[in-house]
């Protein structure tokens, strides 16, 4: 089973037992921090994502928004979602960087039935290995953020891999490198939390008293976090208020499956015991004669 083409330590593997050996190395968690208040909506990150990951361009059209595409796809792993809302009599432009959040408790991985198709690394990256993907799309149902996308031609699922090939070589993800306003930062999760708190202080001085850090507990925290200026408008940002990792998990069905397996075994055992107790009921004109 090919799990990775890189040197990162593995933390969890889909449909497999928990990691084989404890890590000897220290593996600091990394994270991206998206400061929505600094985003100017230029979409350079979308372009950088396409360029680095060799994703083909998709034709789009004007549907009355500054948004480039209507939705994520197997070839569009990053989409800046634009939403105009009225707040206290003013128009506000809410922008959300829509891409995989790399959950600490990945709902996609827990839902995946194929060994090795989804791998979580010690540094927090959750990556899809398409060579092991069977195309069932359980991960799509298991993701609380609606991120993975199915490609009908390859019959595999794709999403942002946090530029794992860059990160492994000590580089920042492509979207981070290209951002002209430094709205996206990258570093250890600890540093990003520190930075996020600094940004919150600045925002509250500017009057954004509802601002918050989006790092939801229901999925154990994420490795892409947001500084959200209008923290009371999460729904308008398309950010779920209480995302949960376990809703589609194999283990959420686990108890039933365990009971089911025992019932199946008990059924086989019962027929065997029944046969030993009473034997066959043979008609007297069948081979073997009367019972």
């Amino acid at each position: 089973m090919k799990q990775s083409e890189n040197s990162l330590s593995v933390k969890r593997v889909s449909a497999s037992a928990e990691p084989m050996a404890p890590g000897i190395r220290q593996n600091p968690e990394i994270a991206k921090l998206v400061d929505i208040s600094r985003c100017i909506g230029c979409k350079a990150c979308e372009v950088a994502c396409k360029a680095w990951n060799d994703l083909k361009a998709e034709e789009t059209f004007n549907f009355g928004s500054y948004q480039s595409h209507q939705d994520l796809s197997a070839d569009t792993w990053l989409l800046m979602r634009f939403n105009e809302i009225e707040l206290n009599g003013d128009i506000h432009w809410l922008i959300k960087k829509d891409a995989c959040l790399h959950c600490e408790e990945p709902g996609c991985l827990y839902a995946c039935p194929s060994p090795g198709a989804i791998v979580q690394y010690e540094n927090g990256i959750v990556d899809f290995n398409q060579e092991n993907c069977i195309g069932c799309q359980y991960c799509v149902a298991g993701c609380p953020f609606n991120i993975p996308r199915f490609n009908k031609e390859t019959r595999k699922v794709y999403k942002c891999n946090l530029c794992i090939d860059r990160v492994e070589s000590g580089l920042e993800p492509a979207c981070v490198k290209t951002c002209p306003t430094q709205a996206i930062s990258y570093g250890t999760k600890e540093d990003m939390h520190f930075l996020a708190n600094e940004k919150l202080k600045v925002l509250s001085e500017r009057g954004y008293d509802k601002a918050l850090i989006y790092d939801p507990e229901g999925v154990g925290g994420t490795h892409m976090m947001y500084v959200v200026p209008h923290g009371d408008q999460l729904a308008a940002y398309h950010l779920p208020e209480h995302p949960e990792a376990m809703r589609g998990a194999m283990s959420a069905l686990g108890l039933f499956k365990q009971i089911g397996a025992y019932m199946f075994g008990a059924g086989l055992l019962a027929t065997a015991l029944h046969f030993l107790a009473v034997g066959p009921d043979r008609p007297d004109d069948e081979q073997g004669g009367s019972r």
Partner: protein
Amino acid sequence: MKRTELQRFTYAQRVVHWVVGLSFLLLLFTGLAFSYPSLFWLTALVGGGPAARAIHPVAGFVFSAGLVFMFFMWVKDMFISKTDIEWAKAIKAYASHDRANVPPTGKYNAGQKSFFWVQIVLGAVLLLTGIPLWAPAWGGKDFSGDFLNLMRFLHYLAALGGGLFLIIHVYLGTVAYPGTLIGMINGRVSQGWAKLHHPLWAKEKTGS
């Protein structure tokens, strides 16, 4: 005793029975692989994970279509009668081969009739819950994750029920009651078999 045979199943009935039976086994093995990571190796039987994922829903449609034929071919014999209730009360005697205390049955007994109805209902549940699981994005519209997870749960429960009934069905049809399996292969059973298991039907067929 001289072996004479009675016609029990038509050619069409036998074909439908085996289409349903073999497609169910295929579905059971691939479905188990999707449900239990420790049984994922079962996908190797059909050529690997992606093949199993591709075959499972197609086999599901074959199975469902077979069930529809099965329903119309057998339903007229499957209505529950008063004798069936008495038969069900004597289930203990039936299970210990104590035929003297089991009310005589016609072409099918209450056990067979309930197996028929249970499989029809479970088959319908499997089909209805299976369609969204086959294509989570049907006609460009996505089903919600919570809905799909509920479908998976119901799909699993129905499959479990079908699997449990299958154990009993196969056990009784093979080792427990010799002479039964051949009836589903060449369509004929021996007169002795008919007298033992379905005495009223045997009387009706032989006119004695």
